[in-house]
């Protein structure tokens, strides 16, 4: 499938990413989107140009005597030829095994340290799976990696980015075709809306 990316982070989110003020979990979801979206990467590049200009204007603070010598010594010690390839956004994390979390849905952990009740994980859902109608007590940021799902705000395919917060209710359905794999940063909890959902929620590991 070659669908263009239709859903992007807000300008505010891209600016926060560029300035380094997003938490690690959300920063990772944005990085995954940027690795798939040239248009947003260019915008972030524009914001980094602003940061670069502020750096040029900064009042310098002298380094300790011998700082350059120390840096050259560390460079020699780790010798290593310079890196040719940029680091993959997921490169520094470990991915857990896929685990069953509900009918048609598997989840794997992403080793982002849990800070203030924020979790990062990947979800894989079979085509046609209807995820339960739910809302959130915090935010839920998602980047689709493969396949697609849809909910009331549209269809989300590879590279699409979905920012949901506690004001939104969701009832996503996985589109036909391939299984849908997403990476998700979740703060707080998912609250299922149906009575059955509330009964089975303790059984699900979400």
């Amino acid at each position: 499938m070659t669908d263009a990316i239709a859903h992007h982070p807000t300008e505010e989110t891209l600016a926060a990413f560029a300035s380094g003020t997003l938490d690690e979990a959300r920063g990772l979801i944005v990085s995954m989107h940027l690795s798939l979206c040239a248009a947003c990467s260019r915008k972030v590049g524009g914001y980094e140009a602003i940061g670069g200009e502020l750096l040029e204007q900064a009042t310098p603070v002298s380094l300790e005597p011998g700082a350059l010598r120390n840096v050259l010594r560390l460079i020699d010690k780790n010798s290593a030829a310079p890196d040719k390839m940029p680091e993959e956004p997921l490169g520094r994390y470990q991915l857990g095994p896929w685990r069953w979390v509900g009918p048609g849905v598997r989840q794997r952990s992403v080793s982002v340290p849990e800070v203030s009740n924020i979790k990062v994980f990947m979800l894989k859902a079979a085509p046609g799976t209807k995820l339960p109608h739910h809302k959130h007590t915090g935010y839920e940021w998602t980047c689709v990696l493969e396949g697609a799902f849809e909910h009331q705000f549209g269809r989300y395919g590879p590279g699409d980015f979905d920012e949901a917060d506690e004001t939104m209710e969701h009832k996503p359905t996985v589109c036909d075709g391939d299984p849908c794999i997403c990476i998700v940063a979740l703060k707080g909890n998912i609250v299922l809306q149906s009575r059955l959902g509330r009964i089975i929620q303790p059984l699900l590991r979400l």
Partner: protein
Amino acid sequence: MVEFDAARLIMRVAASQDRDAFAQLFEHYAPRIKAMMMRRGASRDRAEDLAQETLIRLWRKAAQYDPERAAASAWVYAIARNVSVDEMRREGRATAWIEEDGMLEEEDNDEPESLLLVAEREAQVRSSMVALPDEQLRVIRLSFFDGLAHGEIASLLGIPLGTVKSRIRLALQRLRDRVGELK
């Protein structure tokens, strides 16, 4: 006297691990990065370490620098920002960006195209920033240089969060418009 040309120096480091070029980059950027790290809450000693770490990464990543895509200063800034993000990670400090409201207000679909800032536009960014009203430049600096979350800027300046966001939005829009004009 040859003018300081950071892009060329980075390319010399990439091509031949040129230590003289690296020393010039170090002399120019390390003290500015140290200042940035101190503004971002590092102690003087810690900021020294972080500035050195940034320059080590610059050495390693020099081959990834593409002067067609980014001004040298933007590229160095991004490395320093990543070092600062990693430092917060080590400290287990989650930045508290994004407060209750505002996240989903307007999708900004009518925004002009991307900034498309490449090396040649560096001077244009500079002159556009000089032209910003002080109050806008101030929030931009607090956000991009000092690394403060929008909520933190609001409490520091004693103004509502919405005002911080609108100043940042206006400033970014002006920069984009001016740089767009100059294309």
